[in-house]
Structure formats: structure tokens, C-alpha cells
């Protein structure tokens, strides 16, 4: 359960990691430290990756961390399944008036 007592929501995402073939070993090393990440078959221009994360916040953080990994030119989100999330109340940002 989440701290708020709600059932956990776990978005599933997929990324294309843009990196050169030469950089792929160190990119893989960086990815090895990230939980919930599964890597697919590489091509000379990148790595496919799927991830499930325990929360929306973790999903957003993962995107940032992928972008920062050594050797990564770009981490591009290519699939986003939020069917768990869609049943959960979505937090609306507060936007107080001036």
C-alpha cells in the first residue's frame, strides 16, 4: 500500500535508449543498478528497455536517471501503460489565484 493507504499503482513504460554500439557496455552497466528494468535486443543505435515502477513518481524519476546515465545520448519514452493508474484518483496540482 502507498503511504496514503491507496493500492499501489505501477505504470509500465518502455524506452528507447539512444547510444552508440561502443557505449553500450557502460550503458548496460548503468542500467544494471536500476530496479524493475528489463533490456531487450540491442541495435547499433540503441537499446530497448521496459520498466515497471512502484509509483508514478518513481516512473518520472527513472526517466530522469536514464537520461543521466553515462553514454546515453537520449532516453526516449515510447510506450506508457497506465491502466492501473487510470483507476486511481489523479492528483490535481494546486493552482491558487493571485
Amino acid at each position, binding site marked *: 500500500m502507498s503511504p496514503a493507504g491507496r*493500492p*499501489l499503482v*505501477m505504470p*509500465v*513504460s*518502455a*524506452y*528507447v535508449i*539512444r*547510444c*552508440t554500439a561502443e557505449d553500450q557496455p557502460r550503458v548496460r552497466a548503468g542500467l544494471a543498478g536500476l530496479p524493475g528494468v*528489463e533490456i*531487450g*535486443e540491442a*541495435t547499433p*543505435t*540503441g*537499446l*530497448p*528497455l*521496459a*520498466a*515497471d515502477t512502484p509509483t*508514478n*513518481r518513481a*516512473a*518520472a524519476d527513472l*526517466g*530522469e536517471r536514464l537520461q543521466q546515465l553515462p553514454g546515453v*545520448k*537520449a532516453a*526516449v*519514452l*515510447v*510506450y*506508457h*501503460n*497506465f*491502466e492501473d*493508474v*487510470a*483507476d*486511481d*484518483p*489523479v*492528483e*490535481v*496540482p494546486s*493552482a*491558487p*489565484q*493571485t
Partner: protein
Amino acid sequence: MIRSKSRPRPKPDVPMQTNRRDFLKQAALAAASSVLAGTMVRPAHAAEGADGLVWQKAPCRFCGTGCGVMVGVKNGRVVAVQGDLESPVNRGLLCVKGYHAGVALYGKDRLTTPLIRKDGKLTPASWEEAIEAIAQHIFKDPPKFAFYGSGQWTIPEGYTVMKFMKGGLGNNHVDPNARLCMASAVVGMVTTYGVDEPSGCYDDLDTADTVILWGNNPAEMHPVLWSRIVDRRLKGQKVEIIDMGTRRTRSTEEADHYLEFIPQGDLAIANGICHALVKSGKLDRDWFTKHCNFRKGGDADGEAMTFEDYAKWLETYTPEFVQKFGGLRPAQLQLLVDRFADPNRKIVSLWCMGMNQHTRGTWINNLVYNVHFLSGKFGKPGSTAFSLTGQPSACGTCREVGTLGHALPGGRIVANEEHRKQCEELWNVPAGRLNPKPGHHAVALFDALQKGELTGAWVQVTNPAQSMPNLNGLTSKLNERFLVVSDVYPTVTTDQAAVVLPSAMWVEKNGMFGNSERRTQQWFKMVEPPGHARDDVWQVIAVARRLFELGHPGMKNKDGGFLFSFKDAEGRPVEIWKWDVFKATNVDKLLFDEYRPFTLMKKYALAPYDELVKSRGMRWPVVKNPEGVWKETARRFVEGEDPYVKPGSGVDFYWGKLKDGKALIWARPYEAPPEVPDEKFPFWLCTGRVLEHWHTGTMTRRVPQLHRAMPRAYVELNPGDAARLNIATGDKVKITSRRGELVLPAWINGRSTPARGAVFVPFFAEESLINLVTLEAHCPLSKEPDYKKCAVAVAKV
């Protein structure tokens, strides 16, 4: 949305969910692998995927790139989004906003019922009450009512409003928010080659040797197009990026050269490039002699001049002049000159609001075309000048349907008697119904509301109480007028409304958009809108029908029938003003079939509806070839690509002002901005957007991931200025102009870095309205306001 307590929900740790999650993860991995390999595609029509979701195509809801999105639906809800591999625009990629387009449907404060202000409070009402209130107000004094729309209107939505206002009420006070973002590009094209919309296309990004950004930050604003450029480097291709700007951005990080210029200095730089090209003789004389005339003057007409006169006129724009007024050192200017002087180099110039929101926005558009024309870098693969658009259908709706005060559908204008006759015939309304006097442009429309010259307005799909410049001067009295707002979430504009109408959004309705590269895209409704929300098209037609019942003569066609009379395939009348009938009818197809003949008159030639259903969008002109295949056009005005080009001409600007197939090279001078920093207000203020939020943030701030990534507005300062003023990141800073003030947290060495003496503030946050501070000064030709430069004071609070 509140979860139903009656429906059992699996606990997160039960095996069923784990299996489902594993399955989804494999599906996700397959999707990513497909993007890399370019293998898996989904059909355009609705089809169930291996993951149990029903997938269907749609264009993205947000910017003007026009990315193809595959939308996954389960149990009547959008639950997944994938980039459309079949889309030639994005080839499976989306940006962070696009991937959350589905989540944006489900903010818990969606507007779900009509609201009418009673005793100062917005109170739930029935559709019948709301429609009656609007119709009664319009009926009292139709000429004093206006419509303010959007580049997010679908094509049928914009067309419906045009027919209602101009064909029905005989009232031309219709203008869109697109006036605020691309009007200068429109007038730039019209004055340069006689007709709106670009010649080139995104394909040119794939083959350009050099991409020049003119005050443009595509890394944040058009990220998919940006990745299309930078991904070429990963494939070993050489593509040079030159970033000309007034602040270092994420785009600068990838650039080979960053050329920082003084605000408004782009006018001097473009003329400086032309001067150097002419002086050196490194021109494509054959190209511009064959395809261009020369013109001088500050207005849209100008007068003829010779090349020799033009060369003499350019003598002012020496490297010294460019350094003084543009801020580029001679070597930096020479770098640009060398690129254009190289006959073998293919160059794309890109720009967007940085150049269009400019008190001489039309001129600077003209000048960039000049550079490309003199060097012959136009109308060839990899060489073009291209204005990007910020909204998904600024082109398809505002520019092609013509939802502007002076315009009619299909490139017609209200001031032209022949054009009015053509529209009256196609709309089957009596001769003389259309009003020849142009309506207000956006800023004038809000000025007229402010002064009470207009008594009411209907706003759809936009948020002017946040996005107009100088808000105190233009929108502070909206709550004293009869303001109708159709929207999906509460906004600072709905806060001012007399009537709020809850709208269907994106895939909750049928729709069509037209993107930056003339690509018309169609989608079908996939899920129901929440509560009592209804389509914007229906809202307008329902009000029109009520006016018809009240006896407004404009709501009758020439035969005495209702203005929006349609028949089904069997010839039976379809009463689309009735919601149940509307829901059961593809009204988009009815409207588009009526609209399409307009597009043939200006050779826009949009594809037939059924062809668009089958495709991932088609770039017009779309003409059936001898084999009976509808063929799109990649590059307009180019022989072999554009079917309307005269054989043997190579390039044919067939709408050229002088009717000789030529474009114009304009002598447009440097002009100082209307407000510059001084002792009291020593900083430049530039406003703009950020990666995570789209325009005024009304949708993207409802997406938790995007909101958390960028929760509040800020002011960016140059580190040198911050040190001098003893300001650190997070400190509260007051920004003051002659019009208003705002306090924001400082951000130094963050995502971007303004030039010394300049600050940047994004406009997405309604609690921090930077447009209280901005200046209302607009291009006199395009009427587009300049949000990129005014003078402010900056002080630590």
C-alpha cells in the same frame, strides 16, 4: 475520477496482477524493440492487440508537430499510449507530453456539467438552460458578439464556427489564439510568395547539412522533430546545428555553434548575411533571377526595385552594423555567410514563436526567406525555410479553414466580393449575407471587450485570461461581459465566465488536425466524455438551432431551412442539433465533405475524408494521379512534386503577388523594439514554454508526472547578473514592468541561461501570471504580439 467502491479491485500483490504486469512489460519491451528496428506497426482502424487493449490511431493532442499516437482503450477508458511507428512524422517516438496525453483526460476536476453564473457564483445548469442563455444574448445584438477560438480547434470545429458567425450572423469577429503564435509566419509567407503555408516539410530535416535555429528551442518545444535531427548523428551522419538565440537552452547543448544576439537584432543579422552574400558575389544568381522579384517598403504591398537598388540598400548592413545592433561579432556573422555561400551545402532554417512574436515579425520572416532565395537554398531536398507551429491545428484550422477576422475558408477573404459570393454559394445562404468588413484581430477583440464595444464573446479551447499580453489592460473586465467558455478544466478564463460549457476532449470526439507540414490527420472517437460534457461542434450547432427557432434570419439558408442542414446517405434530414442524433452521426465527415470544396479554390486540395481515414495523414495538395491514386505533396511549388506547378518552371510560386510565378525578396530594415531596457527597467524579459507543460498548463498540470517534474514557474537569470544582485537559486525575486509585477523563485544555472541583462519566465502557471508584466505591442502587419522582449526591473525580495 473517483473509483467505484462497488467494483472489486485486485490487490497489487496477487498473482493475477503480477502476471498481467509481466505480460504488459513484455508488450512494452516489444514496443521499444519495434521502434528501434522499425518493424511492428498497428493498423489505422480500431483493432485489439495482444495485450487485450483496443488500439487506434490519433494525432497527438499537443503541439503542431503532428506526431502519430496509438491509443490503447480498455473498458471505455484510455489506458495506454504508444508512438505510432507507421506515422511518417514521428516513426514511433513521442515526447513526454505526448506519452501523457491519455492521462490528461482524467484529471479529477474535469468540467462535467454546464455552469451558469447566478448571484456571482457558477452554478450547475442543464444544457437547455445554457444554450438558451447564450442564444438569447446573441439574439439581442448579434454584431456585438465575438468568437475567440484556437489552434486546438479541430478542422470541423473551426469550420462550424466560421459558418455560424460569418455565414449565419454575418459577423466577422472571429479570431483564434493562433494569432498569438504564428500570424507573422502567415503574413510572412503571404507577402513573400502570395499564399500561406510552407513549401518544405519535415523530410528536409533528414537531409540538411546545416540546421539553423532562429530563436528556436526545439529540444523542449518540438522534441520529436529535434530527435529526428540529432538521431542522424547517432547513425554517423554529419549534421551541423547553429543555434542563434538570446538564451542558452537545451537545444544549445547539441549545437555546434551558439550565436547570441541582441533582442530584435535578428533583423540586422539577416540583412547582414544578405549584404555579405551580395558583396562577395557568392549568390545563386540564376535561381533568384528566375524565381524572384525585388520589393521595398514597410507594408504588405511595397514597390518594385531592381537587384542593383537592393544591393545598394543593403550597404547599411555592414559587419559593424550587425555587431552594434545584432550583437554578432564579424567572425560569427561570417560563419553564417560561409554556410549560405557554399553552393553544395543544404540548409534548413527553423523558427517558431521566438521569431514570430516580434513587433516586426512579418519583416523578419521575409528576411529569412531572402537569405534562402539569394543563396538558392529553397525548394530542394534539405534546403528550406520553415516556421514550426505550436498548436496541433494552427495550420489545419486557423490558417486553412481561415478562422481569422479577415478570412473565409480555403484562402478566401471577406473584403473580396468574388470570394464572398463563392462562400455564399457553397454555404447556400442568400447573396449579400457575408459582411465585407474584416472583424477584430485577437488583441483588438479583447480591447473591444475591455471597452464594452463588444458585449460578449464565446471562447473555445483556449485560455486568454492567461495568455493575452498585458492582462490588466486587455482582460480585466471579462467578468463584466457575457463571456461563454467551452473547456475541459477550470481555468482563469472560466473563472471570468457567465456560462461555462464542459467539452469533450481529444479522443472523446471525432476530429481532424492539420500540422506544420500541411499534413491533415483524422481520428475517430474512442471513449465517452465524462459526465455531461459534449463536443464543441454540437454546442455551436445547438445555439445556432435555438437562434433559428427564435427567428434569427441568419440561421436560415437560401431555401428557408436551417443553416446546418445535412442529409444522410439515404437523403433523409439529420437533426444534428439533437444530442442523441449528433452522437450517432459522424458529423465530422458531413462538415468536412462540405468544407473540402473550399480547399480546392486556393489549390490547398485536402484529401477526401475516406482517404484520411485510411492514412496516417496526408500532406496537401492531394491530387488523384492518372492511376487513380490520391497522391500527397512533400514540397510545394516544386516541379515533379506539386501537381499545380507549371511544367518546365522548376519552381513555380503560382500565387506570387505579381502573377508571374515569382516570390519577392523584400528590403525590410532593422527597427528598434518599442521598449528597451533603461535605468529604471534595466533587464530584457523574454517569456516562453517549457518541455513538460503545454502552453497555459491547463491539461499538462493535471498530469502528476508532468506537474511534479515542473511544479511552478520561475525566473531564470544569467549567473553574472545573479551574483551582482546577490540572488541565489530559490530566492524570491520581484519582476516589475511599467504594467505590472510578479514575484517568482530564481533559477540560476538551471535548464537554460539567459544572456547577460536578460531574464526568462515561462507562462504555464496560472498562479504566476507573467502576462501581467508583458507589453502589448504587435507587428503592424500580422497583429501578432511580441512576448519576447520588454523592459523590466529585477530585485531580490
